[in-house]
């Protein structure tokens, strides 16, 4: 078990955060720290806009950072579960990024 950092880009919609937090509780994963901010600088996420053929607008998306203690195999499971949440656009750990079902081999967030 090592400390891991997860980053998520998600829709800034009512209930979105509680779904993420609830998922950790429901699946028995622990949250060490949690931080959430609205995204104002979209330039870093151009690749998402291109991939999803969308244009982010002011206040539309948030960036969420969670640290947690988990094993490798559990980490992958958490990523996949988070990626399944409808309001989560992309989620990454140190090595990988899930962008709506597509697995990319690096941390792009």
């Amino acid at each position, binding site marked *: 078990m090592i400390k891991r950092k997860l980053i998520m880009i998600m829709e800034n919609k009512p*209930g979105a955060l509680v779904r993420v937090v609830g998922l950790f509780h429901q699946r028995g994963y622990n949250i060490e720290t949690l931080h959430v901010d609205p995204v104002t600088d979209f330039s870093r996420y151009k690749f998402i806009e291109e991939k*999803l053929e969308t244009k982010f607008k002011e206040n539309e998306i948030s960036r969420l950072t969670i640290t947690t203690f988990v094993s490798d195999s559990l980490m992958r499971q958490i990523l996949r579960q988070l*990626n399944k949440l*409808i*309001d*989560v*656009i992309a989620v990454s750990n140190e090595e990988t990024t899930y962008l709506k079902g597509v697995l990319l081999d690096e941390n792009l967030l």
Partner: protein
Amino acid sequence: MGVILKLSGADMLMRALHDEGVELIFGYPGGAALHIYDAIFRQDKIDHILVRHEQGATHAADGYARATGKPGVVLVTSGPGATNAITGIATAFMDSIPMVVISGQVASHLIGTDAFQETDMIGISRPVVKHSYTVFDAQDIPKIIKEAFYVATSGRPGPVVIDIPKDMTAPDKLYDYEYPEKANIRSYNPPIEPEQNQIERAVAAIISANKPVIYAGGGAIASNAFKELFELNEILDAPITNTLMGLGIYPATHKRFLGMLGMHGTYQANMAMHNADLIIAIGARFDDRITNNPSKFSPDAKIIHLDVDHSSVSKIIEADIAVFGQVKNSLEAIIKTLKNNLDDYDSKRLKPWHSQIAEWRSSHGLNYELYKDESDNNSILPQAVVQHVYNITKGEAYVTSDVGQHQMFAAQYYHFDKPRKWINSGGLGTMGFGLPAAMGVKFAFPNEEVVCITGEGSIQMCIQELSTCFQYNLPIKIININNEALGMVKQWQDMNYGGRHSESTYQNSLPDFIKLAESYGHVGIKIEKNSELKESLEKAFSMKDKLVFVDVYVDPSEHVYPMLVANDSLENMWLSKDKKT
């Protein structure tokens, strides 16, 4: 489209449901839903079915969805209406059944004030829904409905809740109505087509396997992959097993069918899984009733896993080859690639594997000597009840079930040749599911035979729906396998708790089910003797226009076998009370 109407929120809701193709809603009214109920009264496109308990509404919608493949729709009021619906929502969630549940909510300005019948439905339902919506602006109702149905039915299906505060449906506020043609959710993109390189790896593994087994589950039914699975196995000629949720996705009477696997799976199915060198998992999720102890599961098998849900793959058993996509599309791709490599595939290679399986089947297959003595000196065997029902209905009925021994006997002895005919709560294991689910099926297919195989424990959990059945004239056949006990609990107590039957019997307090059925306006038939069994069941099924409640008293000491030895591998099973493999 095109024409823009001015409608209230409630009228928009009904109109949107109709535009979405909804024909039936199962529901129960109450304060927060009254504007919607008035809109129901003023339209004639959608039928509303008044159940007797909101749990019944969700199970009925669920049964309808399982049988038709179309989403079931439920309407309940806030507070107790919403909480009563939770068990049914969780049931649908665990089995990935498409369902849209609309719950009334107290008016926006009252939210958070502990108002009368206020409950946080979104919060309570969150762990058991695929997604949920609150309507904050009535103008969004058409878009939310469109999205909700798209989410519920696409990818891995599941229930979606829409919570609507009462003021959103008020009759005096009108909005422009237009139903969107498409739902467009940028953050939701379930896979459909598989990646070709994974398909090629899968086909290579298939070509080199000597002891393959196909293990297909509910996901294959959800994906409507019957034809593709059949076609694939016409080429492979591999033994095939189905999960409890997958029964019917491959014809049970086919010679390559091994029966169900897992906890109460057949000897040959569990042995084949344990000894396989390749498992082709199709829309199945390796849950604990299947794997038993994951570290002892199928030690030599390579795993190909076809699934639409990334998080189901390598969750419990690591997959060697993962194929993400709609199972139907993935199977099509495998067939196509396999056909291009047909010279490399020789099904004759499987001959020794088939003879091994035939040996397993004949040594400990299901059809042990059930009919050793069918005289009235012996009590009726529950297995025999299911076999008679199977014969009388020619294996063509829709069969719903509850949870317990009767459910396992139904799964083992009613042989389903087609998908969507076996309707049961596999994941959550909800007692009370059977009767309302049967109603949902009967509404969908009024001319088909619908049988509910239940137990005296389970049937009492939603017995109130007998009244709904009378109101809407639903001639279901209820087969109550009455062992005067919570049989499955008792079986575990027999096997693991020294036979101490803690709270699993009722001390002669069961109702007279015949009188009960009659008081609800139906027919009741009691069967207590072997000599009456066949004839009385035939009589019940001959009453085409009547709901018949058949109360069959069976041997209370009977256990379900085979049964996996706890926490062990799939080759270790109890075959009878005193025989282990």
